[in-house]
């Protein structure tokens, strides 16, 4: 399971294929204040990136790579706890 929810924190782990886009979208719709934790994410599929871009949740950690950086640059960072 690449998507885990822990209260208001959604955690994407490892390789997140296109199938994760829909559950992620549902989770973000259900939890408007969610923080998405990407520290454990290795690769996000385009569809997943798109969901993040649309929902624009606060992010913790950013996956490596120019593409993810370019897609997620506009999203706020989670407030450090």
């Amino acid at each position, binding site marked *: 399971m690449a998507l885990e929810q822990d209260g208001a924190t959604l955690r994407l782990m490892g390789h997140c294929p296109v199938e994760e886009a829909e559950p992620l979208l549902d989770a973000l719709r259900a939890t408007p204040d969610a923080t998405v934790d990407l520290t454990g994410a290795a690769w996000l*599929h*385009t569809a997943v990136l798109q969901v993040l*871009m*649309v929902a*624009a949740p606060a992010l913790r950690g950013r996956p490596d790579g120019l593409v993810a950086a370019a*897609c997620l640059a*506009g999203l706020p960072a989670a407030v450090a706890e």
Partner: protein
Amino acid sequence: MTNALLAQFIPEARELLEHAGSGLLALEKSQSAEALDDIFRAVHTLKGTSGLFDIAPLTNLVHAAEDLLVEVRAGKLTLESEIVDGLLDSLDLVGHWIDALESREVLPDDAEAAMAGRVETLRGWLEAGGPAASVDTVGRQAAPDWLGSLPEAERQAAYAAGAPLVAWSYEPDESCFFRGDDPAHLVAQAPGLLGLRVVPRGPVPPLEAYDPVLSWLRFEALCAAPLEAVSEHLRYASDQVQLSPIEPEDLIVLAGPEDAAEMFGDFGVRARALVATGARAELKAAAAALLGIIGSATRQAAALRWIAALAATADAGALLRLVSAIDGATPVPTPASPPAAALQAPAGAAPSRTSAGAESPLRQRAEAILAVQAEMLAVTAEEALNAGRLAAARTVVRRCLPHLAPARAEALKAALARPGDTAALFALLRPADDAVPTAAPAATPTAVASPAAPAPALSAAESPDGGDGKGAGAGPARMLRVDQAKVDTLMNFAAELVVAKNGLAYLAGRVEQVSGSRQLGREIKEQYAVIDRIAQSLQVGVMAIRMMPVSQVFQRFPRLVRDTTRKLGKEVELVIQGEDTEADKNVLESLADPLIHMVRNALDHGIETPADRVAVGKPARGTLRLSARQENDNVIIEVADDGKGIDPEVVRDKALRVGLITPDQAAQMAPEEFVNLVFAPGFSTREQVSDLSGRGVGMDVVRNAVRKAGGDVWLASRLGQGSCVTVQLPLTMAVTRIVTVEASGQQYGVAMDAVAETVKVPRGQIHRIKQRETFVLRDAVIPLVRLADSLGLAPAAGAPPDEEAVMVARVGRERVGIVVDGFRERMEVIVRPLDGLLAGLVGFSGTALLGDGRVLLVLNLPDLI
């Protein structure tokens, strides 16, 4: 066909071949990049899909054609007629192979050899044309407009990497996820990826209505790699990608408002001196020092950053151009104009406020929303209300955060983090307008929403790949590829429903007769009306599926005309009109062969050679006009040429010689009637049989084919001015409106289209001219035919009536009166052709089932007269 995949491939391949073929012809006429892209896309797709099957010769041949097209697209090869011929021939060969695949599922045995020959020819041009035409003649492609929107740091890194550089944009199509594509992965793996910007291709749907399986991103990337490597990497998405090789200088795009401070003049003087003496380190330091003083959003600041970044490595010319961009002095004349152009400030040097906001409409809107929140908070309210109001405002602000300039977002976020501090939040919201210009430029450029990007850059970003955008952005019409047999089955059911509902009308009559209940009869009739309406709609709907534009038939003609005229040494301009006219697929298919024949005839016999044309004072280039239009329930297709026309005298002599007409008949005929004798069987005016037309089959074949489809054809010609063949066909052949007539106690159907009118003729007005009975209808003599006699039926018993019921029918373009015993009713039926033992029966076009279960024979009038 057992292989379902192959069955799917075949129609697709045909379509692609057609695309490529028509594209090539369009390209030959006018060099358009769009047409070239179309051809390339078609050929490329064909190559890709053919790889799924064990048909290596086909794949190899298409590959060779694609390689040739790549060179043409890159401008290294000019598309001469010879090459177009070669490509067309290759496509034809592929077409033949596709036919073979369809029938036998394997390529013909000689495919390998045929392929080798063709590939050699194509490759030959590739090698001959490749080095001959140098890249310089093509002129360097302009750098894409969006280049300036890439983060400055990434551009500087790319500049440092140096040539070869490729800037490319990639708009994965909407449904790419369904094919298992991961565009981000593809982009991430691109060779030498240095810079990237990801933007939405259009308006992004809100979260509530968001569909996670559709792709809507556009990638703009910069790679330090050879064009070939990038293009190879993106080969599977080549139709969604726009590649342009760029020079490092193209990367220097300076944007931002103009700063007219005097110190720039001083800097310019000093910097030029430093460049001249080669004191690069000092130049860098000077630029850095100045940067520390001025605002970072101006154009000058951007130029300074470039100087600071490039001082150590760039050549003097580039640095001097940057210096000129700062102090506004005349730039050093430079051979490369694009960089100079890039240095100019964007139109009118947009004032700072818009430069921050206009680039992102969302940001503007977010600011507007914040301003409203501030207004709302400013209104004093009761304590109890206030808490809820504040909470609402906080939620709104939080939602707006992602769309704000990062610096402003951070500040607001900090205020939100302190729940009690309403005043701080209010204060931040309030000066929204004033805060933007200072806050935004301070922010570092980001990929998604770069404050440095001028407004025009975004809108212009769409334009460089207009070709792509049309395919992906405009939302392609969703098509369903359905086996025609399925539609035909549906059509048959719809038509049978139309016929079956006729049974209700009978039933209503019977109910009234048998039970004497008029009430019940009326109710059945009401139900009948409802079913009738639905059945009609169903039929119209199914018919619409089968309707196709005439262009389906016409599109093969540009090629045919081109090839034929080249062979004949004639010059002909093909004009196609009304190709949007729609007709039933079967009708169009029945029309295809006759039309080819007529076009060949017009080119071969009609239009003269250029020399002959000039001699009689016509333009050397002949015109062949193909036009289609709809008239009532018919499609009218005309093939008109401005050639030498047909000499009625010659036709008459020939017709007399071969015994088509007798001298007596000839004496009575008008010139236009002679001309139409060309449709008679066994007639050909040309003595010589040419390669093209007149292969023993004449225009009679055309007429037979058209008449079989329920239409008619005739010819008009003026000697020396040209001929026009007109084909009239019914729009649809599925359901026929007929009228039933009675003869000797039997009922027969006659298609309504053929019936001009019905009249009662008193016996006294029927005259006998020679062996023929005739009567006069509105000053025209109409020959009469007795249906019972024609069918060999016994004459009706009893005394002949005082008045004969005459159905005036159109046969060809003549009118004939058909004497019947009476008219019965009109109805819509499906006429089923006679088959099996009945197939050879003359006089009937088919049978139809009546509402009461009886079988009705439908007459074929031309056979009877």
